[in-house]
Structure formats: structure tokens, C-alpha cells
């Protein structure tokens, strides 16, 4: 219990520190954030009014207090450009990002675990000789470039999939559920999810392979062999099951990290998600929106790190002993 409380306090501290860094970065770095927003033709009075609306005429420390207070209420302020509450804007695109990430991650981990186990089983075979350099190459390829090639081939080339967005223009849905389960949405999801998957599968694959190799040398596997169990049973029921454990932690960590990496994939496919919102907000100097999107991604990342930590202790009690 003490461990969980400590970890939670630690997480809150990290989030507070990140929020503070972000606040200071946007306000103290050279360049006036309001320049991008304020038209030079505004009169001094108009300028003051807008500054006042956004609370930018207050002293820095008071802005900081207001900022933290709003954060506690889940409020990120108003978008400079759209004049809408940032929280609402983020929540409206969040499902798109979460769905994309989850689908890609699950596909990547299923594929990685399967092929990684197979590689360890058929050690030294052709699969490994060709497979490992290929996997390392996918880890080395920029995600957006994989996306560009897929777009050129499957969207513009053979025309199987749409070139961008999450739904066809003009499509109307009765509910969110209908929207996310519609064939239209799923067709739009294929290419970005596949791009992310190609990038993500390398880690679970290599991890699974090395875990398997390690587990295969353990006594219970030798025992199973001595019992005369068929090789298939040994590999699947004994070795693979145990080798899967570390993948659970990697999945949680991967979820947090992917959310940050989604930025490029979402941009390539014009996918209306959190990452693209962040890029748009930063390039149009919409600081409240950029701040909100960034903090949202950071919050997911830090939470996932915490979950990974907890899962690690629960799944492998040997680890938990050393903590406290």
C-alpha cells in the first residue's frame, strides 16, 4: 500500500513539474505569444481587452496560480484561435487518437509475440536470418515515411483506401458508436493503423524472442522435455506463456510512448487526433491549445508508466520484494 501511495505521489509530482516547465516555456522564452494572435491594426484599447480576456495582463505568478487552479478543474482555458474551451476540443478528438493507438498496438503486440516466439523456436533458421535485419530496418524507418509509401501505393496507386481523414466528407452519424463502428471509419483507419503497427511491432518481437530464448533454458522447460511432452506443447504452454509476461509492461509503456509518436502519423494521414491538433496549435501559436494537448499526452504517458510499474510487480512477485 505504501508503495502505491508513494508511486502515486511521485506521479503527481512529475505531472506538476511538467505543467510548470510548459507554463514557463511558453511565457519566458523569447517572443511574445500574443504577437501571433493580436493584429497590429488593433488599437491599444482592443489589445488590452484581449490580453485581459486571456488573463495575460496579470503578473506572472498570478497567471501561474490561475493556471494550476484551472488544471485542477480540468480546464485548459480558451483556444486563442477558435475561442472554444480547450478541454472540449481535446475531448472531441481524443477517441480518434486512442482508437488508432489501441488498434495499432494490439495488432503490433499480437504479431510481435507470435513471430518473436516462432523465431526463438526455429532458432538459426532462415526466418531469423532474414527476419532480424528486416525488423531492425522497420525500427529504423521514419514512421511518416512508411505512411507516405503506403499512401502512394494503397491510396493513390490502387485506390483501396482513402488518402486521409477519419471519415468521408459529408458523412453523418446518428451516434458516436455508429460513427466508430461504421465501415467508412474503419476504412479510414486501416492505413494509419497499419503504418503505426509496422513501426511498433519490432519491440515486442525482439523482446519476445529474447525472453523465449531465456525461458527455454530454464529448469521447468527441461523438466517438460524430460516428461516427454511434444515440442509444440512445451513451446506454447510452457515457454511462450512465461515469456509473455514482460510484454505486458512493454505494452503499457508503449501506449504512453506511442501517443507522443502519433504526431507524425496523424499528420501524414490528416487523422483528426490529439497529435495533429498539437502540431496545428504549435504552428499557429495557439498556446492554450498546444499546452492542453501536450499536457494530455504527458498525463497519459505518466499514468501508463505508473500502470506498467504496478503490473510488473503484480505479474512477477519476485520483483516486488525488492521495493519498499
Amino acid at each position: 500500500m505504501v508503495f502505491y501511495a508513494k508511486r502515486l505521489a511521485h506521479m503527481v509530482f512529475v505531472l506538476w513539474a511538467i505543467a510548470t516547465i510548459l507554463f514557463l516555456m511558453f511565457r519566458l522564452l523569447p517572443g511574445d505569444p500574443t504577437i501571433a494572435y493580436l493584429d497590429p491594426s488593433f488599437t491599444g484599447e482592443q489589445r488590452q481587452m484581449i490580453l485581459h480576456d486571456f488573463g495575460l495582463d496579470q503578473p506572472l505568478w498570478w497567471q501561474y496560480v490561475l493556471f494550476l487552479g484551472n488544471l485542477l478543474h480540468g480546464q485548459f482555458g480558451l483556444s486563442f484561435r477558435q475561442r472554444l474551451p480547450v478541454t472540449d476540443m481535446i475531448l472531441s478528438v481524443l477517441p480518434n487518437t486512442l482508437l488508432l493507438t489501441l488498434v495499432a498496438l494490439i495488432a503490433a503486440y499480437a504479431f510481435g509475440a507470435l513471430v518473436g516466439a516462432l523465431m526463438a523456436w526455429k532458432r538459426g533458421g532462415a526466418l531469423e536470418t532474414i527476419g532480424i535485419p528486416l525488423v531492425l530496418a522497420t525500427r529504423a524507418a521514419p514512421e511518416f515515411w512508411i505512411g507516405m509509401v503506403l499512401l502512394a501505393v494503397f491510396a493513390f496507386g490502387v485506390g483501396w483506401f482513402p488518402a486521409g481523414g477519419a471519415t468521408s466528407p459529408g458523412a453523418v452519424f446518428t451516434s458516436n458508436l455508429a460513427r466508430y463502428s461504421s465501415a467508412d471509419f474503419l476504412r479510414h483507419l486501416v492505413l494509419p493503423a497499419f503504418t503505426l503497427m509496422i513501426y511498433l511491432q519490432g519491440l515486442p518481437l525482439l523482446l519476445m524472442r529474447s525472453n523465449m530464448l531465456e525461458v527455454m533454458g530454464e529448469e521447468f522447460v527441461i523438466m517438460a522435455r524430460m516428461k516427454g511432452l511434444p515440442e509444440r506443447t512445451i513451446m506454447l504452454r510452457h515457454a511462450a506463456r512465461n515469456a509473455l509476461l514482460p510484454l505486458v509492461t512493454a505494452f503499457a509503456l508503449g501506449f504512453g510512448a506511442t501517443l507522443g509518436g502519433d504526431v507524425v502519423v496523424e499528420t501524414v494521414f490528416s487523422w483528426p487526433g490529439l497529435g495533429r491538433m498539437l502540431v496545428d496549435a504549435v504552428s499557429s501559436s495557439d498556446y492554450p491549445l498546444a499546452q492542453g494537448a501536450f499536457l494530455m499526452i504527458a498525463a497519459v504517458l505518466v499514468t501508463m508508466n505508473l500502470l506498467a510499474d504496478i503490473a510488473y510487480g503484480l505479474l512477477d512477485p519476485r520483483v516486488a520484494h525488492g521495493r519498499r
Partner: protein
Amino acid sequence: MDGGSTIVLPAKRRGLRTALRRYFADPYAVVGCVIYVVFIVLGILAGWLAQYDPTEILFTDDGQLAASLPPSAAHWLGTTNLGRDIFSQLVMGIRPSLFVGITAAVGVSALGTAVGVLAGYFGGVVDTLLMRLTDVVLGLPFLPFVIVLAALLGPSLQNVVFSVVILLWPNAARIIRAQLLTLMQRQFIEAARVTGASHSRIILVHILPNILPLSLLYGSISVGWAILTQASVSFLGFGDQDTISWGFMLQDAYASQALSQAQYNWFVPPGLCIVFVVAAGFFLSRGYENLIFPKLKQ
């Protein structure tokens, strides 16, 4: 086993030779090295290899804009939609990538080593403060933070290197600190302290040589990350628009509808170059890992 016997250390040079032989016994390390050497040589010769100025707008003999030409003898990889020579851009793009990769690697290993050594050596409050700082930096989403920094500091290669360095050092620092904690228990450190060696002497003479392999490993891993990051930042439009880099070429191709025009000759080569250089970095660090942790090799 009498206490008076001296331990015979192998001669330094032979040690290096065995290390090199063991390193290059790994086929990945050899391939990685070859790719690096090729790219470094091409990078040095880039000015001579590029037949055209990569930013120059070219015209055909009959005065037409040499736009979107397919690959030919005059333009090995064809031209962009604005009549720029793609091959020349590609070879000139080697330089910024190598610059970013190598400087970021040096920065990450230097900063990571410094923090790890300070935290592990002095312990106590210094350790706690530095480790909390590490936690905070590890909580920052990587690419979003680089973008925000690039937007605030302005687009330039140096700023990309700076962001990569301040985000990647914690991984190296954590491992090096852990290594230092075990190192501090060793007798030769205590012996040095008893004989009155100063902090700086212990760190520089006794600790650093033992830590160096690890910091080099983390440096070599950072090369690939830095190159990928630079490409992503350029692609998202936060890169230096005056530097021809592979990321810039890809962004240019994407924004100029090269995908729908099926100009594979434009957007495939820069991506492949990135794959080669970054994968070579992975291969190199893999061979290197086998060298430092021989037990891991199975």
C-alpha cells in the same frame, strides 16, 4: 595464492586488438561499420558528387522549367516539381543528418555520464535531486516536446540537437548511476580514497575509464534517434527551411503532391537513406553490446 604475487595484465595493445577482433566477429557490426564509412565518405565528397546546386531551379535546353523529370542520365533521380535535382539534394542531405546524429550522440553521452557520475558518486541530496529531474524528463512526451521547443527556439539543426540531448540523457544517466553504485563498492576506489586522492582524481582516473564503454553505447544509440527526430521535425514543418536535409526533402515531396503523382523517385530515396543510416547505428551498437556484455550473447 600468496599475497605477494602480482596480477599480470595483458598488454594494452593486444587487448585492443582482441576487442576489435571480437567486435568484428559480429556480422551486424561489420555491416553497420561499412554503411557508416560509405555515408561518411559520400558526405565528405557530397559537394563534388552533386552535379547541381540542390536549391537551384533548373531549366531544360529549350528554356522550359525542368519540373518533375523522370530519372535520366542528366538527373539520376529526376527533378522535383520546381525543377530541382533530386540526386544532388540527396547527397547534400547526408551532411545535416550526420551532423545531427554525431553531435547529439556526443551531447547525450557527455550529459548522461556527467549526471550519472555525479549522482552515483556523491549520493545523498545530489542523487535525489538529479534522479527526480531524470523522472520528470522521462515523463515528457518525446516528439511533442521537441516540436514545442523547435517552435519556441526557432528552426535550426542546433536546436534539434539541443532538444534531443536534453530529452535523451536520462536513460544513459540512470544506467551509469547504477553502474557507479556497484563500482563504488570496489576496493580500488576505497584504496584511492584512503591514499588521499581528491574527488576529481578518483572520478577522472578511477571511475571514468570504467564507465566509458557504457556512455559510448548510449551515445551510439542516440545517433539513430537524433537522425529520426530531425527528419520528423522537418517533416512536420518545424525544421530549418534553408538546409536541404532528408526530412526536408520528404516534407517537400509530401506537400508538393508527389504521392498522388506517383513520383517514387522523389520520396523513396531519402527514406531509404534514413533507414540505412539509422539501422547501421543499431547494428553498430548491437556489436558493441556484445563486446561489453559478452554474457548476453546467446
